[in-house]
């Protein structure tokens, strides 16, 4: 009887069934899509973080940049002596490479690594020195001996003055290239934790413990391609020629690795003139429940240091990935909650309305001996099945939506600075003014430090997404059914005798 009645009611009141089911379906589909996309964005964030910090890094230690002391050198300067460069004809070609600490990163004494390693709960730790190599090269005209002496501008048609010659346009102009790439000095022996744990070898070999102090470098494969470098070539880092021994790619598809160039830590310190200095320490805790304790211990042992957890690091991911993340966690969440509430309200209102309309029907059933439980069960059963129909439709629509998202496969860019201290995308170097100006010209240089990682968004269909759909359908159905059933339970059997109005 229960199923016959149920089937007849749902089929006989198709419009109500359809409206309730469609409302539920849309809400459930939206929740599913938001959930899947949010998982996708989290995965993307994780892969950006992995490419920068390596797999298994629980904590990173860095230090806040401090403004330079009075009289201390600010940004670093290219200085060319009068006889620098090679002169050919009317032009002088000059070129210089400098290796300096990366933008926004501050170095600190390498002894911090030992301090961290000795702490309880630390499984592994390795240090790195984040640097930026800048090459300034250009062409200048030969010094102008025949500069005008009278200080007046030449008038039109005045050909008495010799026009300047030389330079890149042969008319006295100058041209300069500024080229920069990021360099990460790493402990060549440490593989367990650190940036190189999230890469795989594309060509040649990786850095090995025996490479310490050797003039060797490993390149990010995509950087190597754009710089037209291959294994066996040499690369000028801060004026030192290093042999390229291997190239690596990120283990997460489409993502760039943390740095363009990887060199042994001691070599990096030596070239950059930063002996005994590091900029980051990567820490792996013995277990995930140790992370908070280890974080506190490090902060106590190194008061000047900034200790970041994976969660802090996720917050530091910037770019369109960050936009997507906040969009999904704010707008997406609220939108799906709002639509879900609306759908539940629709289901509840329709159920109440249905019970009111069927007052005489339920009164009659009670009058002929149906127990309250049987009537309530019937009402609740109808709502539950309506919810489940909506859930099934929502599951289909939601899976289709997720499929469309994956078909479009939007690419999200995210960057995570190797120091998380400042958060956000600022490239401010030491010295506020210098930093601000530095962000201008160098911001446009594509190979600048803290490269943006491109990640294709993949919204995964997980068991939990399917469980959410079914759970919400059941919840919505039960909620409407409980309220409708409560109304039906309060109907008196004498309602059956109410005269037909």
């Amino acid at each position, binding site marked *: 009887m229960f199923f016959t*009645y149920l089937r007849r009611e749902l089929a006989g*009141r198709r419009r109500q069934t359809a409206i309730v089911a469609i409302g539920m379906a849309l809400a459930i589909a939206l929740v599913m899509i938001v959930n899947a996309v949010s998982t996708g964005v989290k995965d993307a964030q994780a892969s950006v973080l992995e490419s920068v910090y390596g797999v298994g890094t629980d904590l990173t230690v860095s230090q806040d940049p401090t403004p330079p002391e009075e009289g201390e050198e600010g940004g670093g300067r290219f200085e060319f002596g009068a006889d620098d460069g090679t002169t050919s004809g009317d032009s002088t070609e000059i070129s210089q490479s400098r290796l300096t600490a990366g933008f926004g990163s501050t170095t600190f004494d390498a002894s911090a690594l030992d301090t961290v390693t000795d702490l309880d709960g630390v499984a592994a730790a390795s240090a790195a020195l984040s640097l930026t190599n800048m090459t300034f090269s250009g062409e200048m005209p030969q010094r102008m001996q025949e500069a005008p002496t009278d200080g007046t501008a030449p008038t039109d048609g005045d050909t008495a003055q010799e026009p300047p010659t030389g330079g890149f346009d042969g008319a006295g102009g100058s041209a300069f290239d500024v080229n920069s790439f990021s360099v990460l000095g790493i402990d060549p022996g440490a593989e367990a934790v650190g940036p190189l744990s999230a890469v795989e070898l594309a060509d040649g070999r990786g850095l090995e413990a025996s490479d310490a102090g050797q003039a060797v470098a490993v390149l990010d494969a995509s950087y190597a391609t754009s710089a037209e470098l291959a294994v066996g070539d040499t690369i000028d880092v801060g004026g030192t020629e290093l042999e390229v021994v291997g190239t690596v790619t990120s283990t997460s598809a489409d993502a760039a690795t943390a740095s363009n160039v990887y060199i042994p830590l001691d070599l990096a310190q030596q070239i950059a003139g930063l002996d005994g200095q590091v900029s980051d320490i990567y820490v792996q805790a013995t277990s995930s429940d140790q992370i908070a304790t280890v974080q506190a211990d490090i902060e106590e042992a190194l008061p000047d240091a900034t200790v970041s957890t994976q969660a802090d690091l996720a917050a530091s991911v910037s770019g369109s990935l960050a936009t997507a993340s906040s969009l999904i966690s704010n707008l997406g969440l609220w939108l799906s909650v709002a639509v879900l509430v609306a759908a539940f309200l629709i289901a509840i209102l329709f159920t109440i309305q249905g019970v009111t309309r069927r007052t005489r029907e339920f009164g009659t059933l009670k009058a002929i*001996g149906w127990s309250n439980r049987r009537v309530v069960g019937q009402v609740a059963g109808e709502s539950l099945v309506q919810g489940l129909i909506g859930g099934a439709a929502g599951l289909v629509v939601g899976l289709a939506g997720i499929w469309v998202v994956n078909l479009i496969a939007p690419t999200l860019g995210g960057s995570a600075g190797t120091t998380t201290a400042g958060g956000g995308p600022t490239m401010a170097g030491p010295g506020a003014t210098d930093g601000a100006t530095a962000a201008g010209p160098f911001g446009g240089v594509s190979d600048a430090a803290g490269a943006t990682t491109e990640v294709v968004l993949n919204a995964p269909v997980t068991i939990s997404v399917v469980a959410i759909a079914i759970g919400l359908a059941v919840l919505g159905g039960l909620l409407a059914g409980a309220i409708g059933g409560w109304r039906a339970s309060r109907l008196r059997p004498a309602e*059956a*005798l109410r005269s037909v109005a």
Partner: protein
Amino acid sequence: MYTLENVSKTYTQSKRKVTALADVTLTIPSGQLVAIQGPTGGGKSTLLQMLGALDRPTSGRISLGESELSHLPDRKLGGIRAKEIGFVFQGFNLIPTLTAQENVETALAPLGISAEERRRRAVDALASVGLADRAGHVPGELSGGQQQRVAIARALVKEPDVLLADEPTGNLDEETRDEIMDLLEGLWRDRGLTLVIVTHDTAVAKRAERRLHIKHGTVTER
């Protein structure tokens, strides 16, 4: 057999008290055909509610056989309605989405009868009201007289001791009215039912063994 002793029923509607039944004392022996007449608002339906265990009196005692209807809990009253009492309503009160067959079966649902026996008994009940060929139709596809026959089949399929009908012919034309009355009278005669019919119609009332008149909640014999 019904026994009513000083049965009163008052409704309170927006602080105003309405006395629907005033101190009714009455016995209805088993197997009697009783017609109840009276003006609208006189208390006919209220009396039928008391007899049908749909509601309890405000004061007084009412019993059906061994059962004290005035003091039983709702669940027990429901059980008595399911087993012993059949209802026929003025507005037929069939469930619009169910077929005639299924409507009749709803009366057997609370009795814990197997689906197969339910089906068989519903088929028999529909045949006994002359609607064997309409079993698969929904109420919307049946005439008023046919719908009331389905309702009578639903009331009788559980083989109750008592059949209560509240203006069963009120919504029907004269010809159909006589058909339905013939049917009810025939069933009463064949099955030995106690049949209580509320009616406005003197022609219907004249067929009864006993006629009661109820006005302002007070019952008088005619």
